[in-house]
Each structure stands twice: as structure tokens, then as C-alpha cells.
């Protein structure tokens, strides 16, 4: 055990990439978990999934076009899609479902097609490229200092927005009709939620890759909901769980050389099972 810690401390002091990975991983996990509660409760979980595929498609396009900074394309495209999907309102629910599926699968297919047709890295290893974009297998240890700063700034913005809009997000999530009828600008807040989610997804792509983002958003919220019963305690617990899982996942992946994204998600699943059992014990036989 001591050896492991020494090894970690050593990495932490001498390898900047490891430091970056920790900072970025923890910040992103924190942001992702905050809106998870809202997404799960509004039955919007699938939108996170759809958006991450859009981000993947945009990334492929950016790479093919030869943009030096991918973010410039990925961010606006994902935000626009998020607004379109989330702001169409709940009345067109069925149509909404179908359009999410359409956009998400479409973006995935086009993205893969482009990556195949115009290989980027010059390594000729298309399968490897695709794999790392989808599962984020290596990119977290190849973060540059700029990446880290961008992540820090954007995460801070997301955190501040979340705290400022916390009460409004609660109202709009709990009972949108009541909020609207009593004068809350539900449309505006849905828009803000959509934009925050898009930003989080683009950020998270660096860590877990686009296929696993939903897991980062949804698992901590689901775990917390097993045990806690008020909106605030669920939100706080989800944030803690998410940070814990992300740091544990990163540590394991550094020591064991496993892919970062899937390791974090595996830890998330394990924690979910633990919380689920705690919930069962606490709540007696309910459900």
C-alpha cells in the first residue's frame, strides 16, 4: 500500500500530465454530476447521450477541416443542438425522442465515416483514433496546459451558474407548469440548463470520451437518489460521489494502466451498487 502511495506521490510531483489529469478529471466530474439530478428527473437522460454523439461528429468534422482548435467548432454545434433538443418543450415528447435518436445516430455515423475517409493523425490507425474519441482511452494523459486552463475556466463558469440558478433549476425541474403559471421564466431557464449541459459534455469528452459521458452525468445522481431525499442533499451527495469516483478511477488507471474513462465509469457502477444496497436496507422492502 505504502509503495503505491509513494509511486503516486512521485508521479504527482514529477509528471505534469498526471497533475493535469487529476485537476481536469475532478472538475469535470463535479460539473457533470450537478446537472445529472435535473436530467434524470426531467427524463432527459437520453439527451446527454445524444449530445455526446453530436460532439463526436463535430469533432470529426473539425479534424477533417483541419481546425487547430477543435473547441471552436464543437462547442457551438453542441450548444445549438442542446438548445434545439431541450427547448422544443415537453409537449412534443414523442417527436423529441425520435429526433434525439436521429441526430445522435446520424452524428455518430457521419463522424465515423469522416474519420475513415480522411484519417487525421497520419498514423493510419483509424480504429485507434475512433476508439480514443469514443472511449477517451488515452487523451487524459496527453492534456496540454491550455486544455487545463480552458477546463478550469469553463468549470468555474458552470459552477457559478449552477449556484446562482439552483433555486430556479429546482422549481423548473419539480413542476414546470406551476413555475410557468406563477411567473417563472421556465423557457429561459430550460435554455440555460441546455447550454450548461452542452458545455459539460464537450468538456467531459476529454476525459471519458463521447460514449461514456452519460455515465458520468447520470450515475452519481442515481446513486445519491437511492439514499438521500431532499434535492439539496442529493445534489451535494452526487457531487461528492462523482469526485470520489473520478479520483479513484484516475488513480487506478494510472497504477494499472487501464483506460481512464471506462475505469471511472466502473467505479461509478460499483458505488451505485453500494448505494442501492444502502437504500434497500434503509428503506425496508420498498421497491
Amino acid at each position, binding site marked *: 500500500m505504502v509503495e503505491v502511495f509513494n509511486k503516486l506521490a512521485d508521479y504527482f510531483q514529477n509528471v505534469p500530465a498526471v497533475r493535469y489529469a487529476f485537476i481536469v478529471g475532478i472538475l469535470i466530474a463535479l460539473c457533470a454530476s450537478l446537472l445529472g439530478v435535473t436530467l434524470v428527473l426531467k427524463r432527459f437522460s437520453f439527451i446527454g447521450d445524444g449530445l455526446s454523439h453530436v460532439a463526436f461528429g463535430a469533432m470529426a468534422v473539425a479534424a477533417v477541416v483541419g481546425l487547430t482548435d477543435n473547441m471552436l467548432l464543437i462547442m457551438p454545434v453542441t450548444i445549438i443542438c442542446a438548445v434545439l433538443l431541450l427547448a422544443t418543450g415537453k409537449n412534443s415528447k414523442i417527436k423529441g425522442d425520435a429526433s434525439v435518436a436521429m441526430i445522435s445516430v446520424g452524428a455518430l455515423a457521419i463522424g465515423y465515416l469522416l474519420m475513415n475517409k480522411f484519417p487525421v493523425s497520419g498514423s493510419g490507425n483509424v480504429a485507434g483514433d475512433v476508439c480514443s474519441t469514443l472511449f477517451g482511452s488515452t487523451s487524459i494523459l496527453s492534456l496540454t496546459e491550455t486544455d487545463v486552463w480552458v477546463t478550469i475556466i469553463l468549470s468555474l463558469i458552470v459552477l457559478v451558474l449552477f449556484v446562482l440558478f439552483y433555486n*430556479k433549476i429546482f422549481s423548473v425541474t*419539480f413542476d414546470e407548469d406551476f413555475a410557468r403559471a406563477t411567473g417563472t421564466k421556465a423557457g429561459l431557464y430550460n435554455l440555460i440548463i441546455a447550454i450548461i449541459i452542452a458545455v459539460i459534455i464537450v468538456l467531459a469528452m476529454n476525459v471519458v470520451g463521447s460514449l461514456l459521458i452519460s455515465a458520468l452525468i447520470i450515475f452519481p445522481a442515481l446513486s445519491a437518489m437511492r439514499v438521500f431525499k431532499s434535492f439539496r442533499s442529493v445534489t451535494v451527495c452526487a457531487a461528492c460521489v462523482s469526485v470520489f469516483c473520478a479520483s479513484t478511477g484516475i488513480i487506478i488507471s494510472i497504477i494499472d494502466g487501464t483506460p481512464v474513462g471506462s475505469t471511472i465509469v466502473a467505479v461509478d457502477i460499483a458505488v451505485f451498487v453500494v448505494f442501492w444496497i444502502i437504500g434497500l436496507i434503509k428503506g425496508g422492502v420498498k421497491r
Partner: protein
Amino acid sequence: MAQLTCDSVTLGYEGKEILTDLSFSVSQGDYLCIVGENGSGKSTLMKTILGLHSPMKGTITTGDGLKPTEIGYLPQQTLVQRDFPASVREIVISGFQGKCGIRPFYSKEEKRQAAENMKKMRIEDLAKRCYRELSGGQQQRVLLARALCATQKMLLLDEPVAGLDPKVTAEMYSLINELHSEGITIIMISHDIEAAMRYATHVLHIGKDVFFGSKESFKRGMFMDGFSFNKKGGERNG
């Protein structure tokens, strides 16, 4: 001047009319009971009054110092998801959200009023409890306390006693009656004609036969020929 006026309103969904040419008005201090068969459009009327749904024809206006967003309401079914984690206190205070504008947090005064409204609804002991673990009657009182945070002027209640046992029903009615005697205008949808007769000052019957008028004239009509009113029948006394 009336607080709420519906002027020849036609309600419907996607071009299909449900209710045509409905006119009535509600004044400060009224207790209006809306009755009618299942599917006659009571909940639709309520959503239209709240501005969640727009009328196909006609206008709904508020007056007498009542702003459209100052109408508190109790939904028919709690659209709230079964597994929503929220404490009673969090839900009650969210009634103030409409008044917050862009202010991010609730003020001390709002917190105090929320506590007072919980006391009024006799749910102060439940403040920390989880909403989804409460009984139906308790949940209704939580939502009523939230509605009270949103307004001190007018409450719309969509079948507030549906699914409650007789004892809890009586408690609910007396709570609503208390609010009415404090000067809050009540509009209540109900299938319980008897209760309507006991508490209401005015009755609106919608469906094939439309009636709007005072409770007394409704009673007279009811005893004379059952439920058959002429289409535009009903005068307004008071």
C-alpha cells in the same frame, strides 16, 4: 371590478373544440365551484386561466389589482415524478420563485412566510420529510402551502379532495374555507356537489349544459329540473 373575467372563451386542443362561448367573472372574495362531467374541460379551463394553454377564441383578463402570475394553483394530479427527491420545505418555498425574478436566493422574509404557510397548513412537523413518502392528503397540503406562497389573492384548486378519505376531505375543505375567510378568492373544481353547495358562493357548471350564477340560483335550477339549464342561463347576483 372583477378579478378575473372570461369573455366568450372557446377552449380546445389542436383545432378540436371542447367548450364554446363560455363567459363568467369572479370577484374578490368569491368562492366559485366548477362542476361538470369527466372530460367536460374543467382542467383545460383551469390551464387556460393560468396561461399554460391559450384559448381558441375569446379573452381571459385579470383586474382589480390581480396580476396573471398572482394566481396560485393546486394541480389535479401531481405531475411531479414519483421518485423526485425533495423535502417539504424545498417544495413550499419554491412557490416564491415567480416573485424572485433574477434574484438567485430566497429572502429571509420569504423563508419566514414559507414557515408560516406550513404552519397554516399544519405541516410544520413534516418540513424535513421527503415529499414522495407522504400520504396523499399530506401531499395536497404541501402543494397548497406552496400555492399560498405564490399568491395571497386567488387560488385555483383542481379536485383538491380527489382520493382522500372522508375525514381528510373534511379537513381539506375546512382549510380551504379558512383561506377563503381570510379574503383569498377561491376557484375550485369538484365533483362533490354537496360540498360545493355548502361552501361556494357561485357555481359554474360546464358540459352540455352551461350554467353560471350564484349558489342560490343554481340550487333553484337544480331542484326544478335536475341538471338542465338553458345554454346561456344563469344570472349573476352579487
